[in-house]
């Protein structure tokens, strides 16, 4: 499915992963309401054992789309510096009118199956994500997995982070690399979205052009003679002595031409899915950038806090108030406090400063780690993007060539028929 198998070890070195099939089920949801949903059969097989000559039995388990979502949000929270591969769309977007937007449509389910498999493979290929134990459990233990995920407490972390992310904050000195990436992700998003929209419109029109050609078929050909012995005088081929046969078979070719567009566009949908993946990737990329801003913000806040505390200590120790404050005023009005009080306050401040220094150290480490890992990750992601999109373009060109060949074939055949007239 994914053409990046050569990338290296990852989980795929030890395990084969695929989604074998999808199935429609119905059951009761949390609100005890009847619902219909689709489950996907994940098949895994350990391959390192196979080297010993034993062929291990494959492991099968069913997962719902919502469980994939849970896995992904767990990964996103746990690895804030990683551009976590996106899931396929929940609902069909950027569809051209003949394509069903129904969640239960077999074509849609099939495309989602491919998309989910692609997601698993991408995760399994990722140098960091592939070692995650929750991922392993997702792939191998059907029951009890949800509880394990929830036990990690990632949700709480996610909630607090989400709040912080939503709060408006402004980072003073953002890293250049992240600024560029953020800019890039914005561009990637707008470019892919525009491309998808334009492609859907092109597909619509192309469909029209092909289908209208089918009308030629109807004019050239006469209705099947087998039904009723009607005089087929109303068809052109029937009223022409010499031209009839040629027209008749040309009509069939035109029918075939009109019908061929269905397959062509169905195949092209695969290309659209590849572009869509990168549209969603742009969101993941942006999330990494936002999380960087968050860590940087937290770091800047705590450093600021520390500076503030240090200043207070200095003021207290020297008795010089550099800045105007209410406390300073009260001191001036009511005289200085007792030395014991001053000592106690000084000690408290010292403690807070120590604490603050510790926080800054932690935050700095966190920030540094995020910057380092994220920069590395984004380099990896950029390489992957370039490779994948180039590949997608090659595939697209191949598809177009095959469409042209089909067109040439049909029209040459049609020409043969016309020449016989």
């Amino acid at each position, binding site marked *: 499915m994914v053409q990046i198998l050569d990338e290296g070890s990852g989980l795929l070195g030890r395990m084969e992963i695929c989604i074998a099939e999808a199935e429609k089920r119905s059951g009761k949801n949390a609100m005890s309401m009847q619902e219909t949903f689709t489950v996907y059969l994940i098949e895994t097989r350990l391959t390192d054992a196979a080297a010993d000559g034993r062929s291990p039995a494959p492991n099968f388990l069913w997962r719902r789309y919502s469980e994939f979502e849970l896995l992904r949000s767990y990964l996103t929270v746990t690895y804030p510096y990683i551009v976590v591969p996106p899931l396929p769309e929940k609902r069909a977007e950027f569809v051209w009118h003949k394509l069903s937007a129904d969640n239960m449509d077999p074509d849609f389910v099939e495309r989602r199956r491919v998309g989910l498999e692609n997601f698993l493979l991408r995760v399994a290929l990722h140098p960091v994500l592939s070692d995650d134990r929750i991922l392993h459990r997702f792939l191998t233990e059907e029951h009890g997995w949800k509880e394990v995920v929830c036990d990690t407490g990632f949700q709480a972390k996610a909630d607090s982070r989400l709040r912080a992310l939503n709060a408006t904050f402004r980072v003073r000195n953002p890293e250049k690399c992240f600024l560029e990436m953020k800019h890039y992700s914005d561009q*990637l998003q707008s470019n892919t979205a525009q491309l998808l929209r334009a492609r859907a419109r092109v597909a619509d029109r192309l469909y029209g052009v092909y289908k209208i050609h089918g009308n030629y078929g109807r004019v050239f050909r006469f209705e099947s003679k087998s039904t009723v012995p009607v005089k087929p005088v109303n068809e052109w081929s029937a009223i*022409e002595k010499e031209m009839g046969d040629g027209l008749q078979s040309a009509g069939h070719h035109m029918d075939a031409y009109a019908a061929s567009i269905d397959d062509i566009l169905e195949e092209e949908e695969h290309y659209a899915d590849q572009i869509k993946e990168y549209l969603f990737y742009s969101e993941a990329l942006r999330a990494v950038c936002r999380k960087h801003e968050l860590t940087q913000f937290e770091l800047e806040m705590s450093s600021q806090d520390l500076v503030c505390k240090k200043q207070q200590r200095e003021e207290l120790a020297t008795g010089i108030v550099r800045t105007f404050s209410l406390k300073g005023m009260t001191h001036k009005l009511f005289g200085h406090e007792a030395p014991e009080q001053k000592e106690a306050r000084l000690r408290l401040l010292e403690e807070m400063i120590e604490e603050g220094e510790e926080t800054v150290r932690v935050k700095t480490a966190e920030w540094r780690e995020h910057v380092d890992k994220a920069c590395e990750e984004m380099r990896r992601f950029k390489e992957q993007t370039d490779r994948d999109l180039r590949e997608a373009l090659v595939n697209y060109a191949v598809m177009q060539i095959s469409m042209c060949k089909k067109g040439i074939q049909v029209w040459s055949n049609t020409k043969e028929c016309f020449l016989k007239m």
Partner: protein
Amino acid sequence: MLNSTALATTTASLTGQTAASASHRSPLRPQEAWLANGTPGEMSSPASTSSLFNRLQLDDDLEDGRDPFAITDTRDLFVTVDDPKKHVSTMETYITYRVSTKTTRIEFDLPQYSIRRRYQDFDWLRIKLEDSQPTHLVPPLPEKFVMKGVVDRFSEDFVETRMKALDKFLKRVADHPVLSFNPHLNAFLTAKDLNKRQGLALLTKVGESVKHVAGGYKLRARPAEFSAMGEYLETFSQKLGNIDRIAQRILKEQSEYLTELREYGTVYASWAECEEELQRPLEGTAGCVATCCRALEDQSESMNQDFLPVLREYVLYIESMKNVLRKRDQTQAEYEGRLEAAVLRRQEERTPIPAEVEKCQDKVECFNADLKADWERWQSNKRHDFKQLLTGMADKNVSYYEKCQAAWESLITLLQDRQTEDKSNETN
């Protein structure tokens, strides 16, 4: 010249003249005259004697049983309409076309002529032909009136299309074994100044004569073949209408497709500006889409220029054909009416059937023969034209796809070149 008094004699003398000039025979009875059309296929006609047939066969065996288009070598009149020019005067603005003639016919004083004519002159010629040779199918002219505002009469496209249609019209007339000997055509092709009043007297007479019988008379025995022709024309015009509608819809859809495709190409181009590594692949794709757009433009253009005008010509042709069929019915009606009257009179007065009625009968038979010959010729032309038209359409589509295919193939080469380049850089 044509000073005949009645329609019957007009026809006889006209076709007679033609026959005389074609095979140096003295003026014939109308029954013989139709054979000069060069289609001795109607052997069932009682008028044709075997000896006459044999004589004619010598003249016509070249055409007999052959595709009439294979006989270009026997043609001796070649006409071309080209080089449109715009004339602007204080009174009006109009276009003239160059009409060039090359011929070996003795009716022409010179072997070559080149004059300029405007649409009105073609229109005059057509009316003349139709009036002086009512038994023949005169090819149609392109529509005279164009919707003002919708079509620009002086636009290059319009003039070009009209020029082609006029060329087609004149070539069809020149290839016609009877019409091509019409003196009006001669005048049209050769006279520096066309005296359009020429033959005006005839026009009114013929007009009256046609009007005279244009009553609601029901034919007693219309030959089945003519009814079949009428039915055929009905169905055929319906089919043509369908094809025309389909072609128009395809063109419309294609132009909308083209708009979207151009947009699609621009998206790739603007995306390319945001990328480094992907810049060239995306630019390449944009270029490729642009090439496909151009190929589609060419294809649509040729549909507009070559496909639709032929359909339109045949729609008009059908009208001309229906018109001739109607005239034939009128002629037969006149004959039947007179015959009936004569029969009645004979029963009462015991007088022989007057010569006038016989003349009418001759006229009908002459008409039938001319019409059948023209019909055959028209069918054969039509077959040829549609074969050419449809294979042309298929060719255009094939060439469109070939152009696109070539573009996409070169894109793949570009993408793969780059990849190998990368790999070699990595190994270095």
